[in-house]
């Protein structure tokens, strides 16, 4: 699943370490999320969206066709 984490993080000049610490994961997890190698759980997705002050749908781009 694609997401806008890197885009949003850079816009706000937030480091990966800071985002990781804020949402309670390791920096490696943030890297994997940004690279699309790992899909966040619902709880983590909610945490990240809340951190950016956005909804989950605004951060994570769910493509139903791609999932099929």
């Amino acid at each position, binding site marked *: 699943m694609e997401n806008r984490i890197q885009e949003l993080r850079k816009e706000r000049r937030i480091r990966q370490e800071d985002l990781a610490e804020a949402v*309670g*994961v390791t920096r490696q*997890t943030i890297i994997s999320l940004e690279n699309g190698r790992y899909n966040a759980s619902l709880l983590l997705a909610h945490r990240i969206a809340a951190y950016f002050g956005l909804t989950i749908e605004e951060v994570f781009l769910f493509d139903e066709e791609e999932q099929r």
Partner: protein
Amino acid sequence: MKQNGLFSEQEREFEKRCRRRILAQKLLFLLGALAVFASLMYEKWMPVLFLEPGGREYVTEFYLVLGAALMAASLVQIYRTRRCLRDPELKKAKQLAESDERNRLIGLKCWAVSGYAMFLLLYLGVLVSGFVNMTVSRVLLATVAVFAVLLGVSRLVIGRRM
């Protein structure tokens, strides 16, 4: 998972886990000591069936080394866990690494892959060992059976909980 502050697992829960770990390691240390004791004293009061030559020496060496290794490993783990509890930075890093969902998922997948591979290897062992040694064949068969039962039971239990 209980939340404290913005989004973090409660520190107390992690500390409790560490203390339980220390207790488990102490038990392992005792088990190791018991193995060492048994290896040195078995001839006097623990009858053992030996079907192969060199069996007595094997029992002494095997349980001595196993017991010593258990004792050493548990001491190291106790030291590392206590150091982690004393050092706030180390404690925070360890807590994060353990609670990280991606790390947890990697751990689960590792166990799953190892379990599948182990089951397959055991089965292959059962197929081959019948032509080599009856005792080995029976032990492997029993191991496969226990593995299968554990798998079924854990599936039932976890399926009901979730």
